[in-house]
């Protein structure tokens, strides 16, 4: 009577959990139900989709690469270095993750736009204009997506066994060598997982992109922007692009299943 061998989950939890599952599943079923399967090749081979795919791939890969270069050092500093105002620094770095993307886009415009705080001197000095350019798409994606890499890598740095680093240092390895030969290999799976999340976020970026970089086919119109525009004019194309994005995102999640859950 008192011992329950296999604990049965409380009915309420099961009901609410199922409700949650339905909530997440129904939109995808709705999308799949609208996919014009037979026209799919024709819809996806149009010039708008091709241009948008090219921009999305270039911008998201470039954003992930830049995120790696600036995100891993940030994560290391946040996990290992002691400096004043660290919670504030972490807050600033994580903020774009929770901020509405359109706010991020507006902030980028005020800072890096043509009349922006940094943008104006930058244009005068180099002639480089970020808004309405592919660089703008990349910058928007880096801004909103890098936090995913930072928190993933910082978590891994905090949870890794630091005795090996200590041992390497005792054996005379310089800090840089310890980082390169011990630390980075140990957290490599998490870096990869963070990188994939960052890439996926950059691939799906919409709000900051349209606000900061504008929307022009072949220059700044990424796949999500193309979906947004096509929804009002050519719904079948919009649904076809959406399907592509769902498939790509699912593929990333599946590919990372073990690494991502293992890393946490």
């Amino acid at each position: 009577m008192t011992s329950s061998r296999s604990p049965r989950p409380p009915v309420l939890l099961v009901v609410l959990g199922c409700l949650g599952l339905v909530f997440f599943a129904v939109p995808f079923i709705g999308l799949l139900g609208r996919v014009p399967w037979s026209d799919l090749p024709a819809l996806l081979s149009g010039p708008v989709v091709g241009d948008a795919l090219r921009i999305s791939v270039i911008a998201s890969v470039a954003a992930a690469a830049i995120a790696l270069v600036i995100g891993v050092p940030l994560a290391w500093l946040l996990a290992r270095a002691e400096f004043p105002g660290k919670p504030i620094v972490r807050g600033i770095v994580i903020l774009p993750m929770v901020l509405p993307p359109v706010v991020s886009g507006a902030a980028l415009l005020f800072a890096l736009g043509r009349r922006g705080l940094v943008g104006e001197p930058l244009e005068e000095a180099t002639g480089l204009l970020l808004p309405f350019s592919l660089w703008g798409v990349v910058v928007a994606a880096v801004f909103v997506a890098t936090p995913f890499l930072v928190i993933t890598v910082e978590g891994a740095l905090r949870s890794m066994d630091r005795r090996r680093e200590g041992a390497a240092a005792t054996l005379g390895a310089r800090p840089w060598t310890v980082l390169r030969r011990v630390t980075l290999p140990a957290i490599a799976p998490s870096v990869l997982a963070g990188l994939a999340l960052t890439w996926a976020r950059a691939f799906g970026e919409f709000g900051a992109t349209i606000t900061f970089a504008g929307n022009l086919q072949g220059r700044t119109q990424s796949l999500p922007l193309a979906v947004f525009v096509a929804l009002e004019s050519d719904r079948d194309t919009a649904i076809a692009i959406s399907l592509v994005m769902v498939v790509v995102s699912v593929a990333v999640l599946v590919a990372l299943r073990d690494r991502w859950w293992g890393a946490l």
Partner: protein
Amino acid sequence: MARRAIRKKLRGWWPTALILLAACAQTTRPQGDTGLEREVLVSAAASLSEAFAEIEAAFEAAHPGVDVVANLGASSTLREQILQGAPIDVFASANIANMDQVVSAGMTAGEPAVFATNLLQIAVPAGNPGDIAGLEDFARSELLIGLCVAEAPCGAFARQALASAGVVASVDTNEANVRALLVKIELGELDAGITYVTDVLSAGGTVAGVPIPDEHNIVAEYPIVVLADAPHPSAAAAFVAFVLSTEGQAILGEYGFSSP
């Protein structure tokens, strides 16, 4: 044992409780002081933002207890929301084409009425840094030029005007709606764009207007209608009547719209 028994008894109550809840929701259907519903949901073209804000305030003052909730965006976005079943009471579009799609879907209660007209104007940042004199300057590739997306009325009209003037514009961005375009001109991020006369007026001193000659300009007609599935039909009818009234027309006039 006892607790389990109580839980079992309670379980039986769930459906009853749900029915009671539903009944409560039914009986407390909100009614305003004037016999109108407490709310009216208005989907209005982005270019109507300021004018409708004032109309909203005046209508709420005339009908205490009724709350006007405005949903602003490109008419094409609003049309799509309505066609997909959004529970909207009133649709005010910036062109006839988007309204026609809602009418032919059989989703309107009665015929739409044109309540305002508007004209296109070139909008430039204060001081006109790109030195824009007319539509022909839209071909200059060294400038940053923005239009609305072709799906939005402002984008469709702007393309008609450019085509009429024989200008192939060197466009750098197609903004989602006229207000998004206006903001980028206000900020000086774009050298020029094509908006409505009313938008330039609403931006005050931050944006200057360059007229488009009549032979290339487009008269934008704004139709308004109560939707067939309006959740608040009487408040919706009252709102539409107010927009068409002398008082509503006067407010629209203040913001640069013309009476049809």
